[in-house]
């Protein structure tokens, strides 16, 4: 097991040590084990760096070339014009998903941490975690065959009644629009936001809750005065983790959303309209089979943009979590 991880580690240190073996018992083993462990840790950092380096290297041809070199693939758009609408679609879909998922998750987390009877809260948390175990391709199937036909009439109704507001204008069946995709994304990020929020809510100091109760607070007032203020930063970072997931999710969007035609540059806020949005991840999965040479490079450049966006979002989320852990008295 150890040899296929880092074969160079024992070779580098083993030889000079072998002659001195016996002076301290287990010295060679100690060095070997420490070396293997450290090497694995470093290897992980190297892998992460390699992801960035190889993506940059493969994206460079598209970034440096003149737009004419890949005009075939992008239908005469330059790189910014090609990636811009994709970034817009990615962020839009993730934000809609967040708007749906965050209130629901806070509700569920409160239900588990504060409302449900003790013996119910375990199973309830388990049921929500089950949502995280389902593969994305199955969510895609569910979205296409179950959600889209059911949500269509509702969207149609909203579009007719509220169509004067530009966001809801121009619904066209079937409901393969960015909102349907975002609903599926919301279901997919629900477990992670719920799990993190639940953990923070459960850490609320007992004394805060009891103090609130002693003042005669109702159950909801306890939640509002003691639990929610204590968990605010936790909920924010949980939402950002969820945002990171939603930004990078491929299959649900690929299988549900009808994208705009290649070579068009659309920034549309009509979230119920069809064929006006596309996300980076779904676009890569859809186009890579017919892409070659410069086309692949363009797609990898768009992937690099996605990588950068999710990296920033995740680092911010982790930073908030770390800051909170350092200052809270919970542990």
């Amino acid at each position: 097991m150890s040899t296929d991880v880092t074969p160079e580690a024992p070779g580098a240190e083993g030889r000079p040590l072998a002659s001195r073996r016996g002076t301290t018992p287990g010295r060679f083993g100690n060095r070997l084990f420490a070396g293997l462990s450290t090497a694995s840790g470093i290897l992980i950092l190297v892998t992460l760096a390699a992801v960035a380096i190889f993506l940059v290297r493969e994206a460079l041809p598209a970034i440096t070339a003149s737009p004419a070199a890949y005009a075939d693939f992008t239908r005469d758009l330059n790189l910014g014009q090609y990636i811009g609408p994709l970034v817009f679609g990615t962020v839009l879909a993730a934000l809609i998903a967040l708007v749906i998922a965050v209130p629901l998750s806070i509700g569920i987390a409160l239900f588990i941490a504060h409302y449900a009877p003790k013996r119910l809260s375990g199973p309830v948390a388990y049921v929500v975690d089950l949502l995280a175990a389902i593969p994305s391709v199955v969510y895609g199937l569910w979205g296409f065959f179950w959600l889209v036909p059911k949500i269509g009439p509702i969207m149609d109704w909203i579009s007719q009644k509220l169509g004067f507001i530009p966001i809801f204008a121009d619904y066209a069946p079937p409901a393969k629009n960015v909102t349907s995709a975002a609903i599926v994304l919301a279901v997919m990020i629900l477990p992670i936001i719920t799990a993190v929020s639940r953990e923070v809510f459960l850490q609320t100091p007992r004394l805060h809750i009891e103090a609130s109760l002693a003042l005669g607070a109702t159950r909801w007032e306890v939640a509002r005065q003691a639990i929610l203020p204590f968990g605010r930063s936790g909920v924010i970072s949980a939402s950002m983790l969820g945002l990171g997931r939603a930004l990078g999710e491929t299959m649900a969007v690929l299988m549900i959303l009808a994208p705009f035609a290649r070579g068009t540059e659309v920034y549309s806020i009509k979230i119920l309209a069809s064929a006006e949005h596309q996300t980076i991840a779904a676009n890569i999965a859809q186009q890579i089979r017919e892409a070659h040479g410069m086309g692949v490079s363009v797609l990898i450049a768009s992937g690099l943009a996605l990588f950068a966006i999710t990296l920033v979002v995740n680092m911010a989320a982790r930073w908030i979590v770390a800051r909170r852990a350092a200052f809270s008295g919970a542990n």
Partner: protein
Amino acid sequence: MTAVTDRPVPAPDVAPNFTTSPSGRRRKRTNAIMATLVTLAFLIALVPLISLLTEVVIRGGSMLTWQFISTDMTGVFGDSPDGGVRHAILGTLQITGLATLISAPIGLFAAVYLVEYGHGRLAKTLTFFVDVMTGIPSIVAGLFAVALFAILIGPAYRSGVMGAIALSVLMIPVVVRSCEEMLKLVPNELREASYALGVPKYLTIIKVVLRTSLAGIVTSIVLAIARVIGETAPLLLTVGIVTSMNTSMLDGRVATLPVFAYSQYSQDALGVGADRAWGAALVLILIIMILNLVARFISSRFSIAEK
């Protein structure tokens, strides 16, 4: 809203009277409304879960025959209802197996480093970036494998190893995180007792720390496998789909269950392709369920007493 903090504190032996004072009635109403909303949030979350599982069981269950599991897609054309997922099941096991062989040792050793060795800046950096790495989009992991092998071998190269590498990028941080938690559960007294007997550190780690947390580690790895076995996007980019079995991991495309489900769906979403996609989805969910049950069994049967 209810501004309870501005009100004078009621005398200790008088319960707030909800029924008579107007503000009491309002507070009671708000409380009831919020309790309903919070419960409703949970019930709403049940809707996708229940509808998804019923759809998979009903639509996939009708496909689940021995013939579906034991044949591949060789020579299946048009609307023929023949064909099955044998090659995809084997491909999924091959690629996930190889990804596990890569990820489990690296992840476990990194966890050992974090718990037993690392105290300085490297450990802090590693913890932070492992967390960041859990957030890498799966499609980016796939693109990384494509970019890596395009440079190493050539742009047209496709093989199972590429898929395994892509999955490893997603799997390693999961293994590190959960193994780290398991190693932290081992009480320090055990380590100190071992050192007091003059046992070297590496033997203490192998014979005391790892042995004590073995069940937890195996559980973590099994759960990590369950996490990545359903990944679709990275495999779509790297191993694609074929109609028959490919036992070579170094040469040519390999069929896998998630990509099989997607490709059947995308070829023929309204006919027999949809049925096969649901069938493959059910098989995939069954595999994930078995993995989760195995993990639960191991952790309940063999875990250390402190848990």
